[in-house]
């Protein structure tokens, strides 16, 4: 009677096989879900970072007196009004007001600082390469130097990159319409489908945003 309760070989193999199948299925689902979660999080970050830069460029252009491109459209230089206040405490003016009026009472704005958006490498030095988007501001129209980099734009707590997923920005200026059209591109490789010897490029996580903004009239 005691021996009759033992497993047969077939029972054992069947049990082990079913267990392995269940474990593989559950593990696969877990890995898949984890990757998707990570992918979703990264895409969300990418969206936030591109949107964040777009909002900063838009706010700058909307307040600018004039805008021009350099370096074939990879750099934007905006002349900002001389009078304004820093309302967010980052050390740079962000709300401007007129310093005069014309004969019809419309506000007039003398150009003060120039704000640059440009592509550069990880150092942020203008002309150093590409791969990241930077902002710099200086009190005259000369080319920006390393000391002019807006570190509060580029970093959290002056050390953690704020927009690491954003790769490039390009600009087009329409002087007649007083508009700036910019395209920001960012990407991440997380979640990309790959197989041995090939990459599924159609699933690469690249996002571009194009926006047209009118500057101050």
């Amino acid at each position, binding site marked *: 009677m005691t021996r009759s309760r033992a*497993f047969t070989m077939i029972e054992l193999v069947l*049990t082990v096989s079913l*267990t392995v199948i*269940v*474990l593989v299925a*559950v*593990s696969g*689902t*877990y890995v898949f*879900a*984890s990757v*998707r*979660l990570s992918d*979703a*999080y990264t895409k*969300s970050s990418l*969206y*936030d970072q591109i*949107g964040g830069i777009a*909002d900063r460029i838009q706010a700058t252009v*909307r307040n600018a007196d004039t805008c021009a491109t350099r370096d074939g459209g990879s750099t934007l230089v905006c002349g900002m009004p001389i*009078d304004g*206040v*820093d*309302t967010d405490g980052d050390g740079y003016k962000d*709300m*401007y*007001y*007129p*310093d*005069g*009026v*014309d*004969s*019809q*009472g*419309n*506000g*007039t704005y003398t150009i003060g600082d120039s704000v640059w958006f440009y592509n550069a490498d990880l150092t942020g030095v203008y002309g150093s390469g590409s791969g990241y988007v930077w902002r710099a501001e200086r009190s005259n129209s000369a080319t920006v130097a390393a000391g002019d980099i807006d570190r509060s734009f580029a970093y959290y707590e002056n050390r953690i990159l704020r927009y690491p997923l954003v790769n490039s920005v390009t600009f087009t200026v329409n002087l007649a319409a007083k508009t700036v059209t910019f395209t920001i591109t960012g990407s991440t490789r997380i979640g990309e489908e790959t197989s041995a010897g090939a990459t599924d490029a159609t699933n690469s996580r690249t996002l571009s945003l194009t926006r047209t903004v009118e500057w101050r*009239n």
Partner: protein
Amino acid sequence: MEELKRRGSVALIALIMVVATAAVALAMVSLSGSVRTKQIRLQDRRMVQDAFDGGVDYVHDMAERGVLRLPQTVNLTVGNVQESLALTDVSSVAVSLLGVSVTVGTPSISINGTLTYRGETYRMQQIIGRGLLSTVWQYAIYDDSSISTLSTVSTGSSGYQGDAWFNGSVTLLNGSSHIRGNLTSTGLIVDLGAVDGVETTNSPSITFPNPSNSTYSAAATVSLPNNSVIHGYSFSAATATGYPLIYCSGAATISGNFTGSGVIFVDGAVTIDGNIATSVGSHLVIIGNANVSLSSSATSLYAYIYCGGTFSTGNAGTTRSIIGGLVASKITLVDGLSSSFDSLVVSNPSEAYNLKLPGVWP
């Protein structure tokens, strides 16, 4: 017993994996929801910012058309965003820009916007140039009626000093007429003379003020009876309520030299029987609720003149000159009229209030 334990262990591992997968799935759902909410909020914020920019452009347009009154609240809808824009004159007072106090020092308007979109309230702020003020007191000649005349009509220099505005059609048949600023009409314009500035037809109207005699009477520093004659006067200094006010309860005859700034309110017909002059830096305002007529010897008038009835020149064979401004319900000319606007009340709105200009004061 050993096999049972093993089977139990396998089941436990499977259970843990199922729970972990479920947790990851729940996290995904939660993350997806929060990301979506965040994106919607960002999009809403951008939508509201764009709507506010549209509202600011609307105020710009009002300022350029000269239909602003300050302070004023402008309510409008841009897309699905409800906007309430509170406009205040911050030309010479400190203003708080999101908590940072600043004195702009130029003629400016602060726009404080309260915007509502999908149940959320947003507050935004911007400062722009003040533009043209929307009172009738920004023209060399403001006529609340149509005009058709063979007499010459001329205005001062370009800009404020030379603008003329007519509520109705304009027919200036004298080729010597010369509007040196903008000529604006709510109707059509036929002008055989010259217009240096912009000629605008079918313009939106501006409200013609109707001053209350009881309000002016209550504020009077001097009260005079009907048929008073005021041949010059020396006004005392301004007080917290503005410049001194002489109130006539009936018709009055006015001319002469005036010292200091002040106001004469006449609740009846006004006859100007000679020239009017003011001391340097002083300004005189004559407010007539009825007709204002110029005798033949009244050729040079330094005053802001408001006429609630008909302003008429009579026939002296010479051009009548006004330095200040003329605001009339109707203008009837026999002699030529030349008017040059004194822009004091535009460049310094508080003076318009102190001088108790109808439509500005009280």
